[in-house]
Structures are given as structure tokens and as C-alpha cells.
């Protein structure tokens, strides 16, 4: 247990980190080279001046927030009740929450276009608002695995069933228990899930493109095919935007004691080394 391994594995971690950071840096560097022979922010100016940028970004941001809201409203009570009362349904629910990773999004889109198309009883695809709703629902579905995992693990960290019983034995109603006990204790988990939902929705291409919505993902891909330097600037901008948002969300969630900066998927057990 003593020889060399820390060096080898530290190296692996650094290589893995480099794998993300070097392309990011390369992209950033390239985005500064729009004017030949000098470093400038010209590509950023070009992107920010474009009406399409503002429009698609705000469209996607609004759709993402809507998806976060609906996702949380769907996931928090479901996860709570499954933990509390439906332990037997857990495997089924866990499985459902992974389905969006397993079913290719294309299948979902085809299914929805069929279900809500011109000949259906709920012809959502015929109106712009209807299609928007389909897109948001699609984002909710895509983010389900992350949202459910984050909230469910947040609930696993505190013993939700016993806390509920404790609140009840003190006379609290179910609503009061959810509002005063459950929600405050999974708030940071919801924020973690929301952050991932936002990241995924903002860059999403297939759904938005097939539903023909003016979203940020298709805009980025379109620009990538048409221009040289602007896409790089755009990539950096979207990256920065995502991070700023994450920091804001963290600040919002900061009141709770003992929270984590990063979203938590697993058990994250740490091993006791010293006696």
C-alpha cells in the first residue's frame, strides 16, 4: 500500500481534468482571435449584438425555469411519498426515473408528435404555445433522472420517515410537515437538481430542433455551421452563464447549515482512516 500509487492516480485525475479544461481553454483562446494578429473580444461583441442570441437564450432560459418548476413540483412530493409509504414501489420508481436515459429522446419526440399531432384529441403541436408546453414537458422528462436522484438522495441523507413521524407526534399536519420540515431540509438537493436541469435544457438540441422551437441549442449548432469565431465565443458565454447561475442558486440555498457546494448523486461515504 505504499509505493507509487498516489503519483499514478494523481496523474490520472490531472489528465482527466485536462481533458475538460484544455479544450475549454483552446475554445476561449480561439474566441479571442477573430481579428487577425491580435487578441480581441470582437467575436463576443458580434454574438451579443445578435438579436437571435438574446431571443433564443431568453426563450431557453424561460423554458428551463419552467421545466425546473414543474420538475420540482412533480419530483419532491413523489420522492417523499415513495420514501414514506411506497417502499415497495421504489424499484419501479427508480427504474422510471432512469428511463429518459435509456429511451432515446427521438422516441419520445415521435411519440409526442403522434399523440399531440394534428389528428389527436389534444393537438398541442398545432399551436406555438402547445409546442412550447411539449418542449417544457420534454425538458422535465430529460432532467428527471437527475432531479429525482438529487432529491431522493437529499431525502436519504435525513431520515424523512422518522422526521415525519416526529412532526406528527407533535401535532403537525401533513402540509405543515412538508412546508416546515421536509422542504427546508431538501432545499439544497432541489437546487442541485435544478442546476443540472438548467444545464441540460440550455444546451439541448434534439428536442428543440425536432419540435422546431427557437431555442438556444439549435441556435448554437446553426451558428457552428455558419460561422468560425462566434461559436467559440458562444460556447464560452453559455459556459460562463451556467456557472453564474449555479453560484446564484447556491447563494439562495446557503442558509441551511452543513450543505455541499456540489450536487450529490451518490453516498459519498468517506472512510475513517485514523483510529
Amino acid at each position, binding site marked *: 500500500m505504499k509505493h507509487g500509487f498516489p503519483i499514478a492516480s494523481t496523474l490520472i485525475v490531472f489528465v482527466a481534468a485536462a481533458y475538460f479544461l484544455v479544450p475549454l481553454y483552446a475554445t476561449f483562446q480561439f474566441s479571442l482571435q477573430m481579428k487577425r494578429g491580435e487578441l480581441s473580444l470582437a467575436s463576443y461583441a458580434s454574438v451579443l449584438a445578435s438579436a437571435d442570441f438574446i431571443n433564443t437564450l431568453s426563450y431557453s432560459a424561460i423554458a428551463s425555469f419552467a421545466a425546473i418548476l414543474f420538475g420540482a413540483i412533480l419530483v419532491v412530493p413523489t420522492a417523499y411519498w415513495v420514501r414514506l409509504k411506497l417502499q415497495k414501489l421504489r424499484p419501479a420508481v427508480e427504474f422510471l426515473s432512469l428511463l429518459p436515459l435509456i429511451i432515446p429522446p427521438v422516441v419520445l419526440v415521435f411519440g409526442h408528435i403522434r399523440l399531440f399531432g394534428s389528428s389527436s384529441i389534444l393537438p398541442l403541436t398545432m399551436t406555438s404555445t402547445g409546442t412550447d408546453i411539449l418542449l417544457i414537458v420534454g425538458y422535465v422528462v430529460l432532467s428527471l433522472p437527475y432531479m429525482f436522484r438529487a432529491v431522493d438522495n437529499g431525502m436519504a441523507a435525513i431520515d424523512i420517515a*422518522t*422526521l415525519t413521524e*416526529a412532526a*406528527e*407526534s*407533535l*401535532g*403537525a399536519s401533513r402540509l405543515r410537515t412538508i412546508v416546515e420540515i421536509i422542504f427546508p431540509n431538501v432545499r439544497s438537493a432541489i437546487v442541485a437538481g435544478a442546476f443540472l436541469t438548467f444545464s441540460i435544457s440550455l444546451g439541448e438540441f434534439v428536442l428543440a430542433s425536432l419540435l422546431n422551437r427557437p431555442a438556444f441549442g439549435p441556435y448554437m449548432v446553426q451558428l457552428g455551421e455558419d460561422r468560425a469565431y462566434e461559436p467559440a465565443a458562444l460556447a464560452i458565454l453559455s459556459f460562463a452563464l451556467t456557472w453564474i447561475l449555479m453560484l446564484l442558486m447556491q447563494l439562495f440555498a446557503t442558509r441551511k*447549515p*452543513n450543505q455541499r457546494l456540489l450536487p450529490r448523486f451518490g453516498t459519498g461515504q468517506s472512510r475513517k482512516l485514523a483510529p
Partner: protein
Amino acid sequence: MSFLDLHAINKSFGPNTVVKDFNLSLARGKFVSFLGPSGCGKTTVLRIIAGFENPSSGTIHIDGQDVTGLTASQRKIGMVFQAYALFPNMNAAGNVGFGLKVAGASRDEIEARVAEMLKLVGLLGFEKRFPFELSGGQQQRVALARAIAPRPRMLLLDEPLSALDAKIRVSLRAQIREIQRELGITTVFVTHDQEEALSVSDDIVVMHAGLIEQHGNPFDIYNRPATPFVADFIGQLNTLHAEVAEPSRNMVRIGAAELNVPSLPAIARAGDRVALKLRPESMRLANGHDRGIALSGHVAHASFLGSVVRLGIDLGGGDVVKLDSFNDRQTLPPEVGAPLTITFLVDDIVSTQMANQQRSA
């Protein structure tokens, strides 16, 4: 009239019946323990009293009121959980005051009561601490304060000490008992630890496989077990084999000695082998002030446990009995193989069973 009345409670989870025809009457202000191995149904009964589980059949009355149909939040019963279950988002004062806030008490009233409760559990000054800033023992004391703050009609304790260290466990159980006496609150305490149950309870209900085996005070439970299960489960038992001499006069023979035992199984005939059951502490090393029956043997093993020295004494014929004696600073424990004589009184025989029914203690 009794304060808590459980009448003909049954509870099944699917095909498993975990509580069978459970009846209990408890007087106001008593401290009763449910004691039994895991899976005996003790926690289920507690959860039925609390309202967290519905009985499959039967009724629960508290202070004359039928609460069987009430939800947990309507029953006014304080509960303390094994895992503390403090609300992580509230500090100690917030936790203790939660029940009063729910009941609509005024701010001043809550503040005064929180201070009173924290003082009672010895945590005055800890109001602002969050659960993660408290030790396990402190958390459980806050949980106790939280449970009794809204002046519940009863207090239920679900293995409240089993997550704690041994020393804290002993001191907290004494503190719980003291507070319970001070408030005079009727209390049900669930535990699998016999010493815990024996030391704090007015009454003990020993449960096994969903049934009540015995209900009595600690001294009787230990010294006059009603069933072989209770005798075996509580404390340790030595087995001494004897031969029935005269069944009609309850006379048995061990080696050359004849003795008159308190009772014999009805089926015992002269010449049958029977097993006499005695507690290890009923046996003494012969020391000049001899009493009762004396048997000779030699030390098979000796363990020094600190305050107690535990000897295994081989009496021949396959009987090795345990004998506990207090440590003496001046005397080393005897060596393995040393010969010695033990004595006991026939009155100390807890029960006499047919030898083939013998269980290991």
C-alpha cells in the same frame, strides 16, 4: 381505573402476524418497559399506541378516551426515537418549541417553556445549537425535551439509548427515569436490553413472538420468571443435573447429597434425571459461613471481568456451572484446575425441568 388500556390488539403485515391478542392496562404515572428480542413485536405495539400503525383489530384507550381512530397528530403523545429525529433545519430551541408552535402557543409562552424544558434536561444555554453541533447524548436530551414540551398525555420511548455509548447510556437512562418521576408522566419504554429495562421500570412486559410472556415488576421478572423463555432470556442460568429420589416429597439426589427442591415436574418419576436451574450469583464459594447445599469441583475456566470474577466450575458428571464473585484487591482469581467447593440454597432454585428439556443458558 387504568390510564392506558390496550384491548385485544392484533397486527399483521401481510401474512405475518407480529402482535397477537395483546392486552395491557397501565395505571397513570407508571413507567413500563416492553422487553424482548428483535422481532418480538414490541416496537409494533409502541407504534400502534403512537398512531403510526393501525392495529388489525383491537382498541386503544387513553385516559378513558378511545383513540383507536385518531391520527398520530391528534393523540397528544410525546415520542422519542432511537435515531433522535431532531429537525436538522432548526436549532435546539426551534426543535423543543415546534410542538407548542403547532399548538398555537404565544411567542413568550414558547420561549418560557423551551427554557424550562432545556433546563430540565440539563441543556440550558444550548438553545442556539443545531443538531449537528450536539453530541448523540445531547441530541437525545433535546429530543426528550421536545417530546414533553407540549405536555403530552403519555411519553413513548423507542429504544432511545441504543445509539449511544455505554457510559452515556447508563447516565441518560437514570436521567430519563428521574424526569419521568418528576413529571409523573405515564411512559412506555421499548428496549431489547434487559439491564436497561430492569433498572428503570416500574413494570416490565416481556414479549416473544408477538405474545406477552410475562408482565410484572423487575424483581419478579428476574427472580420468578413465569415461562422458560423469560428464565432463559433474562440473565443467565446454571444447570445442575440431579436424579429424582422421591417424587412425592420433591426429593432429588446429587451425588451423595439429597435435597428437597421447591417443585418437580408432574411427570417426574423416581430415577429420572432432572435439571435444576440457578442464577450464577446464587452460588457462593464455601468460606466457613457455609449454608445450604455444598458441592465440590474444580475450576474449569476463570475470567477476570473487573468488578466481577466469573468462574466456570466443573462439578463432574458433565455439569460446569458459572459462579460470579466480586473482585477482591487482595486475592488473585483462582487458577484453572484448583479444587473448590460451592454452596447454594434450595430456595435459590429458579425452576426444575426434565433433563431432556434442558436448554443452554
